[in-house]
């Protein structure tokens, strides 16, 4: 057994190591070292906890067994998961953090003595508030992440689920949570505690179902943030510095990512949370319009010819590339182009894909050097000087309507200036509009050649034709 002061110092050290873990991510070169800092911080925190509890009975054996069970499952998932499934993996992991927070809060409530929070029925007021916040936020994180997981995995439809009185219901439930926390503090009654957790689970579900597929990057970031606040709430209850620091770090990290994602879509955080975006009410009108417009479509041969004669090509990947798993074929195509002395770069929109940085990871998986991959603001001026833009699986993020039509729902959203290229190749399965439900006028431009096919199949065909 070590003194509480000494273990507090060790928890502080692991908190600092966690800060360094995030700090390492400022560049790919330092990132791996950062990850080791994170692992070291975790090991310190766990070992110190074992020593400071000082219970070396059979319980400890069980703890280690359960730790290993979880560890093996986690390691198995980490090695098996395809990179295209990262968004749902992250959502799934968030749900586990949330549920763990709920369970720790329940354990602390049922056995406050173990955490020196007072005795049953007479838990310290501050601790009670902290643990109910931890439990409520944890429960919202859990059920919200489960819904996000189901939507990302395609088990549940990605389109928003809206019913009348939805926001009012959420508001009432939100107020109910506060009222319950208040009465819990007064009465310390078990049933109120359980009701609090049950309502929080419900709020998590209701909060995420109205949010459409295209807004998933915001949702995932937001749930990331929630999982942090839940951890911080529990950290206050346990009076544990490592947990408080980590909770604050994760909470602000998720909040910043949500902000970046919202800004990249030119939408306010509130409007994303209220949901309903991507509902297909406008779809039918668009369909009629588009039937009348002529489209130039081509095949792999045409595309290969165009690119072979170009001197610079910019590739714009999107969610469609992830769905089709076309990143490896794409890389093959780029290798061929480079052999012909064609300059190839990649342009990534912040909300391309279903989570922040989704496209970067997929390109990394396909061994694309990260110095060929550029963010929107760094590459947008290059489109005007480039010969071919190869848009693969992206749509809304290239739609020039965001710059021209104030009535469009995506007006003001920063977009990639693909149309400024001499010619545009658009790999898409059909003319259907993107998630935002808006027609892309780029399809009908003279310098656009539509390549109607599965992204992977088309890319492979182009590779063949490049020989």
């Amino acid at each position, binding site marked *: 057994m070590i003194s509480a002061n000494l273990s507090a110092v060790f928890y502080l050290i692991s908190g600092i190591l966690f800060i360094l873990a995030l700090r390492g991510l400022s560049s790919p070169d330092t990132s791996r070292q950062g990850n080791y800092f994170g692992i070291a911080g975790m090991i310190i925190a766990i070992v110190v906890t074992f020593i400071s509890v000082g219970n070396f009975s059979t319980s400890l054996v069980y703890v280690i067994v359960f730790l290993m069970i979880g*560890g093996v499952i986690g390691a198995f*998932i980490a090695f098996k998961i395809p990179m295209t499934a990262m968004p749902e993996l*992250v959502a799934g992991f968030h749900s586990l953090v949330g549920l763990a927070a709920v369970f720790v809060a329940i354990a602390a409530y049922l056995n406050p003595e173990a955490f020196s929070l007072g005795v049953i029925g007479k838990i310290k007021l501050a601790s009670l508030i902290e643990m109910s916040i931890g439990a409520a936020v944890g429960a919202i994180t859990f059920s919200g992440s489960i819904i996000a997981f189901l939507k990302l995995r395609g088990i549940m439809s990605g389109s928003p689920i809206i019913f009348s009185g939805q926001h009012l219901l959420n508001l009432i439930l939100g107020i109910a949570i506060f009222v319950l926390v208040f009465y819990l503090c007064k009465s310390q009654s078990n049933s109120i505690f359980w009701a609090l957790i049950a309502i929080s689970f419900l709020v998590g579900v209701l909060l995420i179902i109205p949010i459409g597929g295209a807004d998933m990057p915001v949702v995932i970031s937001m749930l990331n943030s929630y999982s942090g606040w839940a951890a911080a709430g529990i950290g206050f209850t346990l009076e544990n510095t490592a947990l408080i620091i980590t909770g604050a770090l994760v909470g602000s990290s998720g909040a910043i990512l949500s902000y970046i994602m919202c800004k990249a879509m030119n939408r306010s955080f509130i409007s994303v949370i209220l949901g309903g975006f991507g509902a297909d009410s406008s779809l039918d009108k668009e369909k009629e319009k588009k039937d009348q417009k002529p489209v130039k479509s081509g095949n792999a041969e045409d595309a290969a010819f165009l690119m072979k004669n170009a001197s610079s090509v910019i590739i714009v990947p999107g969610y469609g590339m992830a769905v089709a798993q076309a990143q490896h074929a794409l890389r093959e195509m780029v290798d061929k182009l480079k052999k012909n002395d064609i300059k190839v770069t990649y342009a990534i929109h912040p909300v391309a894909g279903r989570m922040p940085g989704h496209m970067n990871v997929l390109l990394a998986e396909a061994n694309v050097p990260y110095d060929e991959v550029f963010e929107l603001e760094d590459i947008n001026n290059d489109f005007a000087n480039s010969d071919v833009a190869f848009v693969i699986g992206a749509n809304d993020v290239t739609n020039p309507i965001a710059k021209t039509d104030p009535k469009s729902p995506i007006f003001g959203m920063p977009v990639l200036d693909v149309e400024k290229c001499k010619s545009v190749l658009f790999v898409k399965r059909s003319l259907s509009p993107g998630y935002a439900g808006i027609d892309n006028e780029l399809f009908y431009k003279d310098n656009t050649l539509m390549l109607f096919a599965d992204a992977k199949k088309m890319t492979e065909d182009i590779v063949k034709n490049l020989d």
Partner: protein
Amino acid sequence: MEIDPFIFRLSIFILSIFIGYYVVWSVTPSLHTPLMSVTNAISSVIIVGAIIAALAGSSENTFSTSNTFGFIAIVLAAVNIFGGFLVTQRMLQMYKKKGKKK
């Protein structure tokens, strides 16, 4: 009058939010996915609370209700810790290979 220890913890919390703010803004956008998976892993330090809960109480009753919640929480958090750090490592490894190639 003595200062409540809660205030100290609150100070740590608020200062950490500021640290988080500046550190996260410096993360390069191409590493945002690893950022999410690593924050996931480190927030599972909540396992500390799970261990305390699991080890609490007498040795005769290893699986009281509150212990059991602790044990389940250990499994959940462990999945996250191992899964989170390993998948982050796997992703970052991919960024490495390319760096060498060029």
